[in-house]
């Protein structure tokens, strides 16, 4: 257990996360308006979303399916009977004056997520529940000195609120939780996990206590929209809370805001007053009842998820835990790798994908989906190494050329004459020339200065423009020097 050292002793940090994940669907949870991001204000608003008089909600089938898929992906209890409640409060971007949510009877109950920590260890974090609810609209406070502008495009979009148990103890664990959750959501296709666009946001609950002592008062920092900010917000809160407590103060249970400019959390004025949400079952909707057969049918379509895939990669391809973990971090990487590894040396394939490809994509700032080199072409390159057409060193050059041109390895090797020289006659000839040109070095070698072997190899490779098969050069040179 990692504790934080304060001025008066050690502190244990307790972290729970509430993630709002926007459901991937064409239309909103209870209306037929579109969900796409970044449209003109109020252009994706139905009369239902704007809560016009007499408007009624009708639930979107796909949103239910996505919630169930996600629940199954989190190995959670699927509740065949759940209820939509109204959460009542007034706010400019909440048109009806209530949010349709699920309070006492959510669609998904207990589940779990296994965190992959940087040191290769894992840790299980409990999922308390997952429920469906409507997103609110957007208030713009910076458009006018005395006015707030309201855009309801996001109002009514389906969200899954995924609540963790307070099982995390460090900012790194919280980050690992979010990474893993995002990976699972993306594998399932139930949320795009795009935190920058706000389709995945985290409310961060943090408290500190003396190790083993009673839970401290927690603060909730709302709507943090990147993993890095979540870590920073936790670190800031931990430091702040310890300082307050060690200074003899008490922590106020409150809602805070992450200031992305100053990198601090601060108390949210609009949330200062105590809320009384007056939850009650929405009389416009009946309880949501699912059929076990229908749930089973969804379960049957679930993709292989990261944990299973990682285990399989270790087993099937004999990859290290680390390599397998890196490759399964997202579905596209895993698929890419498997396409490369098919019928090839899996370790060599892993090495090329992780070291060369991921390195290059990182430099280029590109996603695997936009990789200039397809899995097929990378496979072609590896084939040329394996069949000795080119050396591993030449292959790296070829790979760089492939990134630039998008051409196949075979074409580039042909075009640029990079084919490895395996003709022993040609290599012998090069050896003879090098030895003839360096009689003094040859004499020194024969006098016992054996490290000159490397010098000869370098000269020979230079002479053959690197195309000579290194193993062959080695063998022939050895033979010649011993002769």
């Amino acid at each position, binding site marked *: 257990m990692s504790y934080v050292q304060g001025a008066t002793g050690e502190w244990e940090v307790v972290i729970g996360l509430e993630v709002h994940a926007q459901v991937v669907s064409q239309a909103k949870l209870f209306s037929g308006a579109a969900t796409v991001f970044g449209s003109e204000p109020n252009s994706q608003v139905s009369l239902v979303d704007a809560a016009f*008089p*007499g408007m009624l909600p009708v639930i979107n089938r796909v949103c239910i399916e996505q919630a169930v898929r996600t629940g199954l992906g989190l190995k959670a209890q699927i509740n065949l009977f759940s209820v939509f409640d109204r959460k009542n409060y007034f706010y400019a971007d909440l048109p009806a*004056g209530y949010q349709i949510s699920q309070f006492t009877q959510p669609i998904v109950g207990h589940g779990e997520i296994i965190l992959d920590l940087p040191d290769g260890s894992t840790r299980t974090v409990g999922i308390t529940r997952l429920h469906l609810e409507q997103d609110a609209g957007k208030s713009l406070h910076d458009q006018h000195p005395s006015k707030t502008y309201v855009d309801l495009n996001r109002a009514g979009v389906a969200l899954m609120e995924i609540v963790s148990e307070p099982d995390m103890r460090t900012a790194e664990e919280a980050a690992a939780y979010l990474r893993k959750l995002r990976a699972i959501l993306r594998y399932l296709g139930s949320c795009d996990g795009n935190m920058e666009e706000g389709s995945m946001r985290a409310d961060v609950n943090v408290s500190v206590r003396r190790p083993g002592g009673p839970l401290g008062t927690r603060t909730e920092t709302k709507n943090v929209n990147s993993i890095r900010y979540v870590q920073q917000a936790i670190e800031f809160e931990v430091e702040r809370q310890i300082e307050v407590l060690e200074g003899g103060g008490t922590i106020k249970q409150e809602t805070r805001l992450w200031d992305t400019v100053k990198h601090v959390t601060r108390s949210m004025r609009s949330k200062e007053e105590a809320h*009384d949400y*007056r939850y009650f079952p929405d*009389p416009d*909707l009946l309880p949501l009842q699912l059929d076990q057969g229908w749930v089973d049918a969804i379960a049957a379509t679930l993709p292989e998820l990261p944990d299973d895939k990682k285990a399989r990669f270790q087993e099937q391809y004999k990859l290290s835990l680390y390599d397998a973990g890196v490759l399964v971090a997202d579905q596209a990487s895993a698929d890419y790798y498997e396409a490369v590894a098919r019928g090839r040396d899996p370790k060599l394939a892993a090495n090329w994908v992780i070291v060369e490809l991921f390195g290059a994509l990182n430099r280029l700032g590109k996603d695997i989906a936009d990789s200039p080199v397809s899995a097929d072409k990378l496979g072609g390159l590896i084939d040329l190494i394996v069949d000795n057409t080119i050396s591993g060193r030449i292959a790296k050059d070829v790979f760089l050329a492939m990134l630039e041109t998008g051409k196949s390895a075979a074409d580039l090797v042909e075009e640029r004459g990079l084919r490895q020289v395996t003709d022993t006659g040609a290599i012998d000839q090069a050896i003879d020339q090098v030895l003839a040109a360096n009689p003094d070095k040859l004499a020194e070698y024969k006098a016992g200065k054996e490290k000159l072997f490397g010098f000869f190899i370098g000269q020979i490779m230079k002479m053959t423009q690197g195309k000579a098969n290194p193993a062959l050069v080695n063998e022939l040179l050895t033979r010649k020097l011993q002769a």
Partner: protein
Amino acid sequence: MSELTQLTLAAALKGLDRGDFTAAELTESHIAAVAAARPLNAFITETFDRARQQATASDARRVQGTAGPLDGAPLAIKDLFCTEGVQTTAGSAILKGFVPTYESTVTARLFRDGAVMLGKANLDEFAMGSSNITSHYGPVISPWTGKAPADAVRKLVPGGSSGGSAAAVAARCALGATGTDTGGSIRQPAAFTGIVGLKPTYGRCSRWGIIAFASSLDQAGPMTRTVEDAAIMLRSMAGYDPKDSTSVDRPVPDYAAALTGDIRGLRVGIPAEYRVDGTDPEIAALWQQGIDWLRAAGAEPVDIHLPHTKYALPTYYIVAPAECSSNLSRYDGVRFGVRVPGDSLAEMYENTRAAGFGAEVRRRILIGTYVLSAGYYDAYYLKAQKVRTRIAEDFRRAFEQCDVILTPTAPSAAFAIGERMDDPVTMYLNDVFTVPASLAGLPGLSVPAGLSSKALPLGLQLIGRPFDEETLIRVGGVLETAAGFHTRPPFIAGEV
């Protein structure tokens, strides 16, 4: 006065079919009647131009042979139904000037079938009331005045909340009207004004586009001068709507065909618990008369028990305000309706809602907010929903012994505007006979059955099994014939 406004809806439709008169003529007569009846304040918005256009279009359809079942029939539409391009207020100041860009499903169906809209009928604000005195647009005055000379100058309430609809139909301004009923808002005003009012089973008519009061109770229905007319209108209004999750997908029968007049062997439940204290003896007598009429027609009266009847009103006065407190949150001065400025968002809300809502609406929102608030939810709202289950069970058990239930519609005849206003609870007692069926979602039909000693109409209520409106209509027809209620109110549009 025009002969045409004296027709029943059924007779008018036959006349149009025969070519005795045109929809344009029928509509003009009714427009004149609406104008003549302005002292009743039955309408908030008159839509005469639109009515004339609809009538002209209707006549054209009739020539082409494409006329619908209600083609050319001038109706009043309760101003709780959103009507595209026509101001819709719910009787509230907060919606003054609100012009929906959409048409409620029920009115859309009526127009699909050819109905003509004369205007938007006055109502209690957000349908909360039993007297139509809570409307921001002024009270509706009943066309009935009572017998005594002193009473003749008294202005009586038409009942509520569908008071404008009831007054318009009773005073012969419209062949029929739409109403909505949450705890009795169709049946009680129908009884007070001597007309027929039918609240269908919850889920029978779509609620889409009807301004919500209490979502689990609200239901639209017809208000007409005969049972047959109610049957005709309901056929057009009813039906499944994919836009309302609580509407039920089952076929809509030809309700008028249920008017066979044959109720032999039918078991009519008489609930002992409806003999409540404070009921007018005349009403008790009329109830007995109703039982006798049905027995004479071959039905079999059966004593039944609905033990939780007395708890229906208190249950209703928790559930309905709770739902309304949430339903009315959307009236916040942001997207539609009236705004009263404030320095902050919260102040703008508070000013807008204080000025925009009348006293009764504010009271119900506050009660509803209270019963849902932390610490009180279980004691009030949850308890009420459990009692509601009990009430529904009472009915289910009763319907094992009988096919239909007969009760009075209201515990008294109409009262004067200004009476019973001091104490909200006394006012609530008006709904004592209508609320139980509402809580159970059952259909209820009020049929005018006689006059009080003060010459005011009294109604009897029939309560049926879920989706068995046909039995209500069948029995209602028999009751109507037996009662022979043909008394017209002293105020008939165009006659005064």
